[in-house]
């Protein structure tokens, strides 16, 4: 049986961070970033647009401080939507502020990860979170 390629939506406005995240995922055999969007509004368009059902992601990696609509609002909208709320959302942010952490968990985030400043930790973190949530999501779909 082949492992299905996960479809990951990366919501990240910083090009450098997006590149680091993509590389870290690739090094663990996950080359599944189907789409990267750069602000909260584009994320909601992607998830709620007319053809959204055709490209529904398996996991969403979501930055918090985003142009236009912030990540917490995007998270709230995802978790309030019946058709989307079961998609694991991993918040990936530079913010370690208590209020952001609390708000994210209040909005039913699946994991909250503070972006580490060294690459090895980023890789490890992505490996752990994506492996866990991807397998969880696959099991749920079966």
């Amino acid at each position, binding site marked *: 049986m082949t492992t299905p390629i996960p479809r990951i939506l990366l919501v990240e*406005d*910083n090009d*450098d*961070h997006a*590149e*680091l995240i993509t*590389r870290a995922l690739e090094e663990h055999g996950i080359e599944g970033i189907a789409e990267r969007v*750069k*602000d909260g509004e584009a994320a909601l368009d992607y998830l709620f647009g007319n053809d959204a059902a055709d490209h529904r992601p398996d996991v969403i990696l979501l930055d918090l*401080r985003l*142009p*236009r609509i912030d990540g917490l609002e995007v998270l709230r909208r995802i978790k309030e939507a019946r058709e989307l709320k079961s998609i694991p959302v991993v918040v990936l942010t*530079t*913010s370690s*502020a208590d209020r952001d952490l609390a708000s994210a968990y209040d909005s039913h985030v699946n994991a909250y990860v503070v*972006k*580490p*400043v*060294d*690459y*090895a930790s*980023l890789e490890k973190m992505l490996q752990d979170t994506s492996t866990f949530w991807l397998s969880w999501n696959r099991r749920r779909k079966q």
Partner: protein
Amino acid sequence: MPRYFAVVDRPSDSEAWADDGRLVAVFEAAVDAMVIIDAVGTIQRVNPAVERMFGWKAEELAGHNVIKLMPSPYHEEHDEYLHRYVTTGERRIIGVGREVVALHRNGTRFPIFLSVGEVGGSTRLFVGIMRDISAQKAAEAARERLIEELEAKNAELERFTYTVSHDLKSPLITIKGFVGQLERSVTAGKMERFRSDVTRIAGAADKMAELLDDVLELSRIGRLVNPPEDVSMQVLVDEVLELLSAGIESTGARVTVESELPVVRGDRTRLVEILQNVVENALKFSRDAPRIEIGARAEGGFAVCHVRDHGIGIDPQYIDRVFGLFEQLDGASPGTGIGLALVRRIVEVHGGTVWAESEGRGHGTTMSFTLPLAKPPIAGSPTS
């Protein structure tokens, strides 16, 4: 033992109390106003402090109801408490001080601290002792205002720290992340990727330096270094258009300026910064050949200035975010997103307000701000 102590201890006769010259002297000398009333609130006697506090002479009050000194609903409450005490002995005001509102002869109301005691004697009498607490209340209100202002400043500082720490950490993640990648690229012989990663690292370091400069600049605005001066908006506009002439020329922008702009008062260097940032934004967020209109009118002691462009506009739902520190609605725009945060800070330090209006994307933006008008010259005064 002096006689009046015995009288105070056991006031067996109100007349004897009143006749005691030394006690009367105390009554007359008290800074607090004292009013002696009977059980139905009729004023029997007042001390001189009452005249100072309420504006009524003693003879104008004697025989009148105490209602004259106390507006509704306080006098009704007072009557009820007194009646309850007389009929049931329940102490709601007797021996218990409370804050009420008093009525001056001229109709103004002022806060007092009132305590009521029973004087006793053959006729049942009560004494109301009143202290004007207007100054204390004003001080309390001023303190509350100060606390509110401090809380607002604190919240602003917290937001500032939050934003700055987040935004400074961001290039650090890039630098550390790509430094970690360099060795891998060399080992794998991927020299092109190595070079591109070095460029990313250098870019992030530059970004960090830029952010730090911006933070420093923002912190400087709190203390205006140049003394305020009267300066014509026309002069400011001319100066800014000169500063931005290269950008205006290269974009083919057409700038229209209203005639007869008002004279404002403020830190001239900072005022130039306001206009420069706003006009620069208008240029930056316009498509080919930008059209920009600058104008101002005097209104209520302030100049209401506007810079209107016909550029890409702002979705109304994000309009308030544009003034946030390091906020960029379009992540691909150059700069750090400090410009309008600076503008807001400078305008607010001058006592003005700033706002943006747009009918939506593609419909242009109008940035408006208010600045204090210069005081008109006194007629006949020499001009320099």
